[in-house]
């Protein structure tokens, strides 16, 4: 291919891209946000550490609150929070009560046309936790070991699957994720498998614990009205920036405490993709 034909191809692509941009459907929400300078954020502020209302000040606070404020800062918008019960969040979007929902909202495969999801910013799938310095990071390393889970939880479901995959996996079941993590801290179990929120909180509070692999995904993302493609694009761009420049990591440290992952250098080549991919 000659230089001229490459230039022509690039030019043609640019023209096509600009044309497609011109033909994008109007996004009334984004237009309204731009005109008012205010982004209305809906959340169910009863889910610490993601969002709660401070009992004394009455202010919204938590990981999602800081995330939304940072988004506002980067887009040059003021943020106005509205407290809405979890079951009403999608309806709030559809009835134009809010512009975006940021509320530890799990991404759904089938949202029945009620919303568009932004880039995910947190994975609340089940995650292994083990002592700092453990020489294993994945479920398949648990042969001959003991695993602590919360009875009936997603970690319990996964644990029962792995009981059939491994020849010798012993599972201890506890009433809460905190008890399962405590069992690891006290040496009663080799690892715990709990939801990522509990895992991160546990690691944040106990310097002897570290995060291992995610065994599944429950991704949290923002949601906008199904017609708000331009707003979604703006939010995606900012979230991407925040994931890359360490802002999201800093917010995790702020709301979950210091985070540590199990050292994997050399010994476990399979561990790295799990610990880096969708770690948020």
């Amino acid at each position, binding site marked *: 291919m000659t230089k001229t034909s490459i230039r022509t191809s690039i030019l043609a692509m640019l023209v096509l891209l600009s044309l497609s941009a011109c033909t994008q459907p109007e996004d009334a929400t984004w237009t309204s946000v731009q005109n008012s300078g205010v982004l209305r954020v809906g959340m*169910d502020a*009863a*889910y610490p550490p993601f969002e709660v209302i401070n009992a004394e000040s009455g202010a919204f606070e938590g990981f999602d609150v800081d995330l939304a404020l940072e988004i506002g800062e980067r887009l040059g918008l003021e943020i106005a929070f509205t407290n809405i019960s*979890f*079951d009403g969040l999608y309806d709030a979007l559809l009835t134009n009560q809010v512009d975006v929902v940021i509320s530890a909202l799990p991404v*759904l495969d*089938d*949202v029945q046309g009620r919303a568009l999801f932004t880039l995910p910013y947190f994975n609340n799938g089940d995650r292994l936790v083990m002592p700092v310095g453990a020489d294993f990071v994945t479920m398949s390393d648990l042969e001959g070991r003991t695993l602590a889970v*919360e*009875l*009936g*939880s997603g970690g*319990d*479901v996964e644990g*029962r699957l792995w009981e059939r995959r491994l020849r010798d996996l*012993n*599972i*201890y*079941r*506890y*009433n*809460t994720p905190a008890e399962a993590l405590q069992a690891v801290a006290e040496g*009663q179990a080799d690892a715990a498998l709990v*939801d990522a929120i509990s895992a991160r909180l546990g690691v944040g509070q106990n310097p002897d614990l570290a995060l291992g692999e995610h065994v599944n995904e429950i991704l949290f993302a923002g949601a906008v009205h199904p017609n708000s493609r331009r707003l979604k694009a703006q939010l995606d761009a900012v979230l991407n920036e925040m994931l890359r420049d360490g802002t999201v990591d800093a917010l995790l440290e702020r709301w979950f405490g210091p985070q540590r992952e199990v050292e994997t250098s050399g010994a476990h080549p399979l561990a790295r993709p799990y610990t880096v991919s969708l770690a948020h």
Partner: protein
Amino acid sequence: MILAWALRIALVGFAVEATSHMPQYVVTGEPRPVETEHPITCVHTRLTDEVEEWKIQRTLSLVNEMGATTIVEFFPWAYMEGAAKGDYYWDHADMVIEHARAQGLTIIARIGLVPEWARPERTTGQADTTLNHLDPENYQDLADFVAVFAERYQDEIQHIIIWNEPNLAFEWGFRPVDPAEYAHMLSVVYPAAKRGNPDVQILGLALAPTLEPVGSQHGMNDLAYLEQFYQAGGGEYMDALAVHTYGFKFPPDDPPAPEVLNFRRAELLHAVMLEYAQAETPVYITETGWNDHPRWTRAVRPGQRISYTIDALAYAEENWPWAESLCIWVFRTPRPTFSYPDYFTLVTTDFVPKPIYFELQAWARGWTANQTNP
């Protein structure tokens, strides 16, 4: 060359077309018994909207293996006599009932949902009626259907619940809830059902546990409703009381109180029965359970849900001699709701049994519980 490719494509197309409409071959098999040490164990299935036969079979097979003896299943009138009066479609009901029989399960059939032809015609300026709207002049249509249903399945179904939660405005077609009117409906349906199958047991009420006061536009307190139902003479037209009782945040031994919605609210309903000389009338708990959604305000932790559910079954078995069955809402749903109702299920839509399934199975079948903690 082109002709050869065209022939190949045509052959592939023919093969795909020839096999795509073939029904899936599902073998019902010989009836197998339920192995259980606690026959009170029952689940509410949700097979109404399940299209594929293998899923119906798999669901009921899992119910059998869990050690539940009984299912509650919804058989919508609107699905079975939807086109016109007397024009019946039984295929789906036949399929569900045949597979339940093969798994040795007792069926409690819930009948509701009104066909369009039995609802008032639309008139300009009036809101549409809902699938739960049945005017008194059409009670006989429901009675005629129940008679045909009871007769058709007289060998397989001995328990029929008429309607669902009539103390809620939504379930009563957004008309003002009215215990006397429900009693009137039963008075028309009951004799017809007995004509269809003299042995069939008609279960009444299946009230929603609610604290809504008398006069509320949303519904009526279940205790008040039951009182007024008996005062209207409704007790003559049912053989057993269907009860819905949920634990919400409370453990199963939480004491009953009129202003509290908890598992033992069933005892308050039973006390009303005694007040109206219904001591001999059996009770079927056709909906009960706890929810373990991580964010629903009325949910509990997954481990609590397991222990509360098993403790509730044991409590009912020991303390409620009048309770015939305790049916857990809900075994599995054909599709997820992506919200808190998914956390009532025992098995996921994809047929993955949740830990509560295994723990209930261990309890019902008398196996050692799956606990190995130090």
